[in-house]
């Protein structure tokens, strides 16, 4: 089975970034040129930017009417200079909400790794881009690091809420974003592994309990908390904090917990928040 730790060893031995190892691997496995892969990934980044803009400016409501307009509230408060947690965190929260709202409102997004968790990665990357004045080329490369880790998560465990709960969706997205953020900030390959492990450990056990079965409550807000966990994990890893449990073992654990999780808590809307009195009322009103 493929292991992220093997990529860390390879990258450190060759003195390159994880993204370069992932790129090399994909050139071989997909039989495509580096340029073709890069172009395709650039398109993903472009759509991510567009979905952030659409979510921050738009006033669309979702089909159920439960979702819309919250990204703009967070952005407005921050722009007035009233952020409690600081500009970086406010920016990430607003961007994660923005993309997740666009998704709920039938706008265009990049599944990262899924549609339900599409806000985490663009929020973290585009926030770090602003803070550190990162160039476009490195941003696209960081997406390869994120996607490469996602590939390993999908192979060793799952990125599907129906299979393994929200830990597999927002949890995976947070781990992918944490690794990418560390690479962008100049961290080492092993620090990307620590950041990913810390982020995923923080979300182990999280269930998938969507109200009325919709990708709205609690999914949209969990994108924002997922983005914040990614940034916190990246900060620790960049400071030299290590994860006691290595990333591959954390991924395997996530998969195992997913198997142990009852079906009612895996995207069936038969447990968790979906069956609270309010959750049931929303479902009855809508359907």
């Amino acid at each position, binding site marked *: *089975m*493929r292991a992220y730790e093997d990529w860390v060893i390879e990258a450190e031995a060759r003195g390159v970034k994880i993204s370069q190892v*992932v790129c090399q*691997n*994909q050139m071989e*496995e*997909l039989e495509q040129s580096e340029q073709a*892969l890069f172009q*395709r*990934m650039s*398109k*993903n980044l472009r*759509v991510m930017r567009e979905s952030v803009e659409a979510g921050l400016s738009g006033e669309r409501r*979702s*089909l*159920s009417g439960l979702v819309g307009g919250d990204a703009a509230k967070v952005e407005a408060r921050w722009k007035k200079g009233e952020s409690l947690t600081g500009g970086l965190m406010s920016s990430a929260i607003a961007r994660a909400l923005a993309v997740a709202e*666009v*998704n*709920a*409102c*039938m*706008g*265009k*997004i*990049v*599944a*990262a*790794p*899924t*549609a*339900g968790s*599409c806000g985490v*990665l663009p929020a973290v990357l585009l926030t770090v881009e602003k803070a550190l004045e990162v160039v476009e080329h490195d941003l696209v490369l960081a*997406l*390869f690091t*994120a*996607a*490469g880790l*996602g*590939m*390993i998560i*999908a*192979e060793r465990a799952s*990125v*599907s809420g*129906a299979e393994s709960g929200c830990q597999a969706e927002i949890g995976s997205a947070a781990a*992918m974003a944490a690794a990418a953020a560390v690479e962008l900030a100049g961290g080492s390959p092993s620090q990307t592994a620590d950041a990913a492990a810390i982020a995923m450990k923080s979300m182990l056990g999280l269930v998938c309990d969507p109200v*009325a*079965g*919709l*990708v*709205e409550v609690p999914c949209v807000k969990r994108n924002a908390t997922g983005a914040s966990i990614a940034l916190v994990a990246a900060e620790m890893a960049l400071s030299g904090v290590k994860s006691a449990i290595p990333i591959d073992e954390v991924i395997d654990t996530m998969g195992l917990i997913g198997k142990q999780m009852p079906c009612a808590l895996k995207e069936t*809307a038969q447990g968790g928040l979906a069956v609270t009195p309010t959750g049931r009322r929303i479902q009855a009103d*809508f*359907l």
Partner: protein
Amino acid sequence: MGKGNVFDLLGPIMVGPSSSHTAGAVRLGAMARKILGEEPIRGTIILHGSFATTGKGHGTNLALVAGLLGMAPDDERISEAPEIAKERGLGFVFETADLGDIHPNSVKFNLLGKNGCNVQVLGSSIGGGTIVIREINDFQVEIRGDYPTLVILHQDLPGVVAQVTLLLATAQINIAHMWVSREKKGAQALMVLETDQLIDDSVLGLLRKLPRIYQALAIEPLE
């Protein structure tokens, strides 16, 4: 271990909210349109399982109609599909039914085309936007839209399959996968072939002229 693809983890680029209930639904509609082979003017769309119960909140109905209009999963007009259908002269009705022991995200289309073609297509959205067509006109098939696909309705007699594969071999078209099913011995049969090369109109024309072939349809892969 299979080959990994980073673009399965970052992507698809799609209109939300759900890869299975929205993006997959668009692809099912688009595939049904390709199988019909002409502009649809009337459609009955029968929703099964989770498509019937949670489809509304995921825009599944809109997505299925968008697919019938030929839209792709990243088309931002998906939410306007009913209005566009009206402009383009596509009338449709939705029904719900238990279609039996199949995937919960399933739909059956009964379509009429502008030149009078009629087709019934049953398909499922099986996760992450991936789809599979299970039935065409009550014949069992398995079409995922990953390959150029030939669907041939023919008489169930010795040599009919061989003449088709010989013609494809002559045209340098390689068969990747193939299924054959029939109503009963000697009656109508259906051949489905997934190929590595696109099937152009000249090859399709030759296929249609072969004896014992009633209908032949070439379906391009989905984007």
